[in-house]
């Protein structure tokens, strides 16, 4: 296992070698034909696929309080997530959420290696489904290989056509669902059938569908090898106590074929019968017996394959298994180590902070834009008026009526039209506000004043500062 350690330790050198290797690999990399396999980890993966894709395909259809539960309405710049509505001004929360996601990924990686890759990454999940379709239409690994080598006869045409037909249908549905997160999906569905899609909807539907088809149907492991940033930096989170999928070299070597029932000790062999099943099932086409490699997405297929072989041979399972480097070397494995503790403390603090912040968010917002045309107006009777365009956002779940008041100068008054501003839940409204004050109270041409918007029930109130302008040399 020191081999694996070295591979990671060598950092820069490895990068360099990988770079030059990539040059040749691009042409010589052979198509991988993963063999289908059943087993504990494959069942787990299947479960993950159904859970995640189920969520993806069904969520846009869920309604919540009469509105699509998840609707990221970009043109309106409103984001509905179940009961909550977010505006671009809440970008802070999105940033927090992204940081939490990133930290969780680090945390999980430090503990259990690339479980994200093996079970949850969209790339793996969709590839898995596309592989099922491939398996279903073209047969298992040997038949697929034969089919690809063979001539274009009737059977090949039928099989390839059905494969691509189903792939394209699924990809199109995927693209449709994607757009459905941004446009009300029911209306979208109607418009697809009446061929009444807008240009952007068409573009994104095709784009996302095409990306799914290309990535899950053709690129597959190459996305992980050449395009994914996570694949490149995940090893930085690893340590000797991280769960990895590994071949037990001490137990398996020297490898070699043998008859069933033969005593390996007598033949001078280890437990590996060199059947290459673990290589054939690997979706990235590597040999796990060469040590931990960055191509390995930790899908566990080789564990399931090897366990089956071990069962057949009557050997104990686990020649390939989830383990840690320390365990392989006979040392104790620690779960709570500084790295893990730091990640978890940070994570908990961030999650708690974000939840509190969301819960305590004042569900309204006020933006003040001074009138662009005139700084101020002098009225009869020595009064000065400034006009503002005030945008009030009602981010709560109920309709509210708001009133506007001003302070900051003696005798300042605020008038709106109408006096009471009614705004429905999750809506916004632009209100012209006139501030008036007697010219005599202005000692300087510009003064900061405060505008307060209050809901009539008194529960919500936001105060913003703006500038009030008057004539230049008055009152100096």
């Amino acid at each position, binding site marked *: 296992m020191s081999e694996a350690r070295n591979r990671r330790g060598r950092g820069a050198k490895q990068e360099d070698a990988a*770079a030059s290797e990539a040059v040749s690999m*691009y042409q010589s990399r052979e198509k991988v034909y993963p063999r289908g396999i059943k087993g504990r980890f494959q069942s787990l993966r299947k479960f993950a696929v159904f859970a995640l894709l189920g969520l993806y395909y069904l969520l846009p259809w869920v309604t919540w309080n009469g509105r699509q539960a998840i609707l990221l309405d*970009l*043109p309106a710049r409103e984001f509905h997530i179940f009961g909550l509505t977010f505006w671009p001004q809440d*970008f802070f929360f999105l940033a927090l959420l992204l940081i939490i996601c990133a930290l969780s990924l680090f945390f999980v990686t430090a503990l259990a290696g690339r479980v994200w890759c093996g079970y949850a990454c969209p790339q793996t999940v969709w590839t898995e489904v596309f592989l099922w379709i491939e398996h279903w239409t073209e047969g298992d690994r040997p038949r697929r290989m034969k089919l690809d080598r063979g001539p274009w006869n009737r059977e090949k045409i039928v099989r390839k056509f059905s494969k691509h037909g189903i792939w394209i249908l699924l990809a199109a549905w995927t693209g449709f669902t994607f757009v459905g997160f941004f446009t009300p999906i029911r209306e979208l569905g109607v418009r697809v059938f009446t061929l009444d899609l807008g240009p*952007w909807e068409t573009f994104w539907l095709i784009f996302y569908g095409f990306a799914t088809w290309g990535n899950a149907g053709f690129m597959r492991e190459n996305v992980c090898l*050449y*395009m994914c*940033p996570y694949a490149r930096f995940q090893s930085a989170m690893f340590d000797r106590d991280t769960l990895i999928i590994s071949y037990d070299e001490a137990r398996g070597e020297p490898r070699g074929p043998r008859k069933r029932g033969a005593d390996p000790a007598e033949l001078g062999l280890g437990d590996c019968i060199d059947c290459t099943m673990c290589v054939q099932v690997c979706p990235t086409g590597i040999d796990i017996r060469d040590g931990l490699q960055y191509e390995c997405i930790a899908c566990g297929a080789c564990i399931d394959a090897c366990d089956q072989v071990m069962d057949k041979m009557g050997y104990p399972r686990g020649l390939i298994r989830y383990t840690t480097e320390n365990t392989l070397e006979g040392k104790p494995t620690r779960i709570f180590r500084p790295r893990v503790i730091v990640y978890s403390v940070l994570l908990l603090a961030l999650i708690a902070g974000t939840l509190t912040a969301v819960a305590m968010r004042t569900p309204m917002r006020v933006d003040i834009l001074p009138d662009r045309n005139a700084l101020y107006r002098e009225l009869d009777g020595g009064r000065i008026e400034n006009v503002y365009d005030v945008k009030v956002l009602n981010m709560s779940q109920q309709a509210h009526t708001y009133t506007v008041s001003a302070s900051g100068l003696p005798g300042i008054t605020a008038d709106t039209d109408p006096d009471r501003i009614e705004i429905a839940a999750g809506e916004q409204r632009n209100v012209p506000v006139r501030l008036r004050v007697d010219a005599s109270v202005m000692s300087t041409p510009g003064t900061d004043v405060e505008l307060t918007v209050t809901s009539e029930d008194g529960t919500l109130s936001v105060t913003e500062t703006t500038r009030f302008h008057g004539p230049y040399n008055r009152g100096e």
Partner: protein
Amino acid sequence: MSDASATQAASSRLRWLGAILWPSFLTAGVATMVFFANVDPETLRYETLPDWEIGRKLGYTLGFFMFWAVCAASSALSVWLFSPARRAAKAGRKES
């Protein structure tokens, strides 16, 4: 032989294109998100080009492609600056 080197050249060009377009696509995506979270394309248009008819959707799209172009330019420059060094390193390795 010439056939092989032709495909090699084609694939290496493809790889270059990938190395330029892919990372810039990712960074442009992030930049677009951060930018438009803080700036409403409608306001931006009003402030700069009040006479143009640019809706929000078009605004987002234009913004994204602008970011992508800028990021791609930077990626291209990196690839270009990086490549002679790599070629030299490769030549050096072959000699030894």
